[in-house]
């Protein structure tokens, strides 16, 4: 009896230690993001004076107004939306076109086809040979250079393939086949509807990848086609005001400087915000999906 009580107490104290420990970790991870959010609606001078550790100072949405008034940032924003939508559709379609056939054990040469795709996960041509092929196939300057050369996202394809194999009852597909349903019909009427949860994960993963990508656009596209992160390179990394920004501001250098600083914080929120809002919706699914992919990777 005494023993039980003692172990219960030590369990409670270790619970407390764990909670405190994880709370500190949460703070370390979340605080920089919170700080940027606070700073984006504060007066930039107050931010740099250290007056915005906890709450905004002189609340204003001027930074956001400036971000969307900046022509190059706004164009980048629209470009990013376009690339994300088209790229996501392309990627998810490609994943399914491969995952479904490879999930069918009766498919002749299934193993060889799997290896054919998996090899590309580990070996590649490298930067320049890939660049030259993209160039020779005439994709430079076309937005398709962002999607097509990436081919199939093999890691994600394996997750979907395993999901189809493990989560859709085999008997169901066999019964449909006996009833005379073709492979395409089974794919369309059965596999796609029944694999919606994992499809949601693939949609989010692809969206994140395209929304955040800038390197591919930097090497293959013109400046006018740049997506948001690439446009933000001028603001965030080179710390320079864009030309369109300088032209619209009349208050001289100090005012321009203030504007540049405000835009920095607001543009970070605009660039990072959308994906941070979306991922919690499919969090449970990707936790499951990663396991399925890992077991038979």
């Amino acid at each position, binding site marked *: 009896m005494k023993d039980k009580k003692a172990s219960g107490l*030590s369990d409670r104290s*270790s619970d407390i230690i*764990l*909670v405190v*420990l994880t709370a500190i*970790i949460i703070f370390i*991870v*979340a605080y*920089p993001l919170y700080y940027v959010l606070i700073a984006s609606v504060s007066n930039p001078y107050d931010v*740099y*004076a*250290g007056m915005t550790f906890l709450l905004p100072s002189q609340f204003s949405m001027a930074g956001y107004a400036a971000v969307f008034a900046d022509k190059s940032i706004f164009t980048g924003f629209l470009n990013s939306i376009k690339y994300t939508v088209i790229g996501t559709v392309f990627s998810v379609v*490609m994943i399914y*076109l*491969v995952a*479904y*056939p490879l999930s069918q054990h*009766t*498919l*002749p040469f299934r193993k060889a*086809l799997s290896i*054919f795709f998996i090899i*590309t996960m580990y070996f590649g*041509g*490298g*930067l*320049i040979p*890939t660049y*030259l*092929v*993209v160039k020779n196939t005439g994709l430079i300057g076309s937005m398709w250079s962002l999607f*097509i050369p990436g*081919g*199939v996202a093999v890691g994600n394809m394996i997750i979907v393939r395993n999901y189809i194999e493990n989560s859709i009852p085999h008997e169901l597909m066999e019964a449909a086949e006996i009833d005379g349903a073709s*492979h*395409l019909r089974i*794919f369309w009427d059965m596999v796609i509807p029944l694999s919606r949860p994992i499809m949601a994960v693939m949609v989010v993963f692809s969206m*994140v990848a395209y*929304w*955040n990508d*800038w*390197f591919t656009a930097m*090497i293959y596209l013109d400046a006018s086609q740049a997506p948001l*992160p690439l446009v*933000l*390179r001028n603001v*965030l*990394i080179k*710390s320079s005001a864009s030309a369109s920004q300088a032209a619209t501001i009349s208050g001289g250098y100090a005012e321009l400087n203030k504007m540049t600083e405000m835009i*920095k914080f607001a543009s*970070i929120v605009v*660039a*990072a915000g959308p994906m*941070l809002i979306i*991922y*919690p919706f499919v*969090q449970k699914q990707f936790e499951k999906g*990663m*396991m399925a992919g*890992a077991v038979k990777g």
Partner: protein
Amino acid sequence: MSSKKQRGGAARLDSANQVSLARQLSDHWQLYLLLLIPVVITVIYKYIPMVGIQIAFRDYKASQGMFGSKFVGLYWFQRFFSSPNCVRMIRNTVLISLYSLLWSFPVPIILSLAINQLRFHRYKRVVQTVLYAPHFISTMVICGMIKIFLSPSGGLINLILGTKIDFLTMSEAFRTIYISTGIWQEAGWGTIIYLATLSSVDTSLYEAAKVDGASLFQRIMHIDVPALIPMAVLNLIMSAGSLMNVGFEKVWLLQTDLNKATSDVIAVYVYEQGIENAKYSYSTAVGLFNTVVNILLLVIVNKIASKASDVRFV
């Protein structure tokens, strides 16, 4: 052709139900139709570039193409090894990834051991959601945040320290910045795989250990840690195979003229020589050198790991 005959023959011997390969192929034509476009794209944009690596041994001229340019043997490799910054680049590449691996590798394991033992499910979920967040942010934005936080005038770190240090101009600070922010961004995401592994641990083991009077720490050390070891070893081997793959994006964005003594890495050089200077063959040769070292490391680590334990993954 011969495999077709063999399979067909085996099928006939096997049972009457089995059909010939030709029949099987025609039965599955719709599946091959689905595969057609992905296979074509993969051949063109993945396999042709692999073959194209041989321009590392040629003097590539656009007019003569990837397969017709003059063969120059190891000329580009010799040029790389005799370039003034060669040793510095190899050293920086190895050191950044080695320190990265040593510091980053244990963090997700420790985090997942702690998260797994949280008993309040709502809170556990919140912890996981917050820890995953930085993974979903673009490298560009992360580097922008790093620049802002480390700014000598009014950056968060300098405000807290009460100093005006320009960290990004200090070559001795570069690796610390690179690695600590990398842990901040990816450690949470790295817990997924370990948490998934821990979720398959039989909970009756915990109960049994509790009855025996094992403390939480003892339960973690004797039940959770052994369950994680195979996955951890696998991850370690995989990381060893990319030891020379320093992420180009982050280094390139955080590099300044003043921190180049530690931030000058092969990946950035490959980009500068290839894309900015259009020295295609030279850039490919340097990249190929990097890949070969990676493969060698992978083989060595795999040998050591399979000797040390009975696990072999690659």
